[in-house]
């Protein structure tokens, strides 16, 4: 197999260093040499079978370690191999933890070398200049399966530069998980935030507080921004102007403060992305906002209250009922990618036929192009092979994904400024300060506005928003 890397002339670098390095390699002995020159092993299992057939090209992909290990297994061992065979390309897939994606991306850009396809889990608007435009890819897919969904489009398109900087293959809806048995004792359902506030004190006294994180992590970010939306408050407007200082924000902040005091415990400030999962699955929490990883974990562990876990859309608030995607898979192709043609073909194929991904992720991955999976409602009603699956729990995901999910940055686009605000956890910080009584709602709003202003200013001056 042609290893293109070998062709790069390494003597460009300081001669002294190269020679020294060569000497050192020789001196350190054969074993180390053998180890070092073996090169990267790949995630393509069963390579010996195909070794006799030399595949013409190479495609390197990197993406997160999916919460459902079975999905990665299927993707790595079945899907990409099939695709590779059909397209005469050897595909290598590397996995990295969700938290390490940004540093991985930054170092690949700095190195001007890396993978052909890089999958982010949130729209990487800041990297717009480092990637090629994917407008043609999106158009090709749209011709075959219909328009890209609203969430996908608003997350990967920059209206100012008219460029699709990323290709969204999936997004994950973010429902509410609640314990029907516990809420049943209180006699309410979390269909509105008002209900949540009313039920919370009783639930807490039962030892089962409500769990909405206010910590520097993904779940908290998503839940709180969605909460703002339910109160009619938004970080920016459609023109990318900061609108955080508003009555809706004040109401949301005060609501959260009351909810915290009456129905939550201080652990929510310490949470990692896993904590609400852990707390819910331990039987402690009565409500959490999370992707279906909670429900699936409960099934896998066959918890005693597995059947009591229900899923609902985000509760209704004074504003529109509007939740967010939990994560969104966005592929980019670096400008320096070596096999852009194959990368684009890969994206077109994955965007056109998403059924396998939808099913093998056990409904975690919803297609960004709704037309690429036929008959989602029917599929959601059918049982999968997941152990101890609770039937009837998942059909609601269809309406959640269609009606009550929007992109981060709504009503505007998911631009670089929103991305930075998100990554600096400015929203959780604002909520936490008010909930703990360190600041009033107005003070916290103003502080958040102050933190956001230079961010928006910077990206505006770069003509990106």
């Amino acid at each position: 197999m042609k290893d293109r890397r070998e062709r790069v002339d390494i003597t460009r670098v300081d001669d002294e260093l190269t020679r020294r390095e060569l000497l050192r390699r020789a001196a350190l002995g054969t074993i180390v040499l053998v180890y070092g020159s073996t090169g990267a092993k790949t995630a393509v299992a069963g390579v010996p079978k195909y070794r006799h057939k030399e595949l013409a090209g190479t495609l390197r992909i990197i993406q997160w370690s999916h919460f459902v290990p079975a999905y990665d297994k299927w993707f790595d061992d079945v899907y990409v191999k099939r695709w590779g065979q059909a397209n005469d390309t050897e595909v290598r897939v590397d996995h990295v933890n969700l938290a390490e994606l940004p540093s991985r991306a930054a170092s690949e850009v700095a190195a001007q070398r890396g993978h052909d396809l890089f999958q982010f889990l949130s729209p990487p608007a800041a990297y717009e200049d480092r990637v090629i435009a994917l407008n043609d890819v999106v158009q090709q897919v749209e011709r075959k399966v219909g328009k890209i969904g609203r969430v996908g489009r608003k997350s990967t398109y920059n209206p100012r530069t008219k460029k699709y900087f990323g290709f969204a293959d999936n997004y994950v809806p973010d429902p509410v998980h609640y314990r029907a048995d516990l809420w049943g004792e209180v006699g309410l359902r979390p269909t509105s935030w008002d209900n949540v506030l009313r039920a919370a004190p009783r639930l807490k006294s039962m030892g089962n507080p409500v769990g909405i994180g206010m910590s520097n992590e993904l779940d908290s970010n998503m839940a709180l921004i969605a909460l703002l939306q339910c109160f009619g408050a938004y970080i920016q407007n459609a023109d990318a102007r900061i609108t955080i200082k508003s009555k809706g924000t004040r109401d949301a902040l005060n609501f959260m403060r009351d909810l915290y005091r009456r129905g939550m415990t201080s652990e929510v400030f310490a949470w990692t992305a896993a904590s609400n999962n852990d707390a819910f699955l331990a039987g402690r929490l009565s409500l959490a906002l999370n992707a279906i990883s909670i429900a699936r974990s409960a099934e896998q562990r066959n918890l005693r209250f597995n059947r009591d876990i229900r899923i609902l859309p985000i509760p209704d608030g004074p504003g529109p009922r509007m939740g967010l995607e939990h994560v969104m898979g966005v592929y980019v192709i670096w400008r320096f990618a070596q096999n852009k043609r194959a990368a684009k073909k890969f994206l077109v194929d994955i965007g056109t036929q998403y059924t396998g991904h939808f099913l093998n992720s056990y409904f975690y991955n919803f297609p960004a192009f709704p037309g690429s999976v036929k008959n989602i409602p029917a599929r959601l009603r059918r049982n999968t092979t997941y152990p101890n699956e609770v039937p009837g729990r998942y059909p609601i995901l269809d309406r959640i994904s269609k009606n009550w999910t929007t992109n981060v940055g709504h009503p505007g686009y998911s631009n670089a400024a929103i991305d930075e605000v998100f990554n600096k956890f400015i929203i959780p910080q604002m909520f936490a300060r008010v909930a703990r009584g360190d600041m009033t709602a107005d003070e916290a709003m103003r502080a958040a506005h102050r933190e956001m202003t230079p961010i928006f200013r910077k990206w505006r001056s770069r003509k990106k928003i």
Partner: protein
Amino acid sequence: MATRRETLTSWLIITPFAIVLAFPFYWMLMTALRADNDLYDIEQVPFKFNADSPTLNNFRFLFEQTDYRQWLENTALIGGAVVLITLALALPAGYALARLSGGWGQTLGVAIFLTYLVPPTLLFLPLSRVVSELNLHDRLWSLILVYPSFTVPFSIWLLMGFFKTIPPELEDAALVDGASRLTTLVRVVFPLSIPGILTVVIFTFSLVVNEFVYAITFISVTEQKTISAGVPTELIRGDVFYWGALMAATLIPAIPLALLYNVFLNRFIAGFTGGAFR
């Protein structure tokens, strides 16, 4: 050997420290031996096991379903290579700075030390460019090349201080007897510096094993990761932590390394207190 009373006081003083320092490891062991339903049960008394525990499932998971063994090998390999490189660079430099350079040796020593003040969270980007230019990305060699950049300054420092304690009269005596400088170095200085070398070995190895930032950025391929990089990235999938396996993964390198360091410590302290001092 110390008297009874001295032994007792020693134990009295050290035990609280030992408890605080070693308790997390006891806890790791307990966690690693638990079955999942025992681990995630709030009602369970943490210091007892339930019916399904203790179990070796977590260890089995670690070795069968992840590339943990490979990561251990990688880490050991990188550690060994970096130790050798560090010794090769730092021994002569430490000796020279301690012995031959007089006044400006101190200044150079300080300058070398200042390289520590630059956090790797800043350097890793330009360095990843260097690594890719050299075609070393996703290979162990990238780390073997970069790690000495922070092990060498520290080792120079250690060796500098160490060589200062070897009286120059010993070398002068050899020189007067007709040996060349080279012979002096090999025959006289080197044997005396074994404790110093052992020190460098331990410290370098521990610095290498500890390193995190470069390890996760330069290598993305699973089979080429070190334990520092592989464990947090592969045992934490999305929002699910595999706590049992995580604790097992932490425990496994710690115990042999601590034993090793302990053994080395004896040797190099013996070197300090024994040896050809006047």
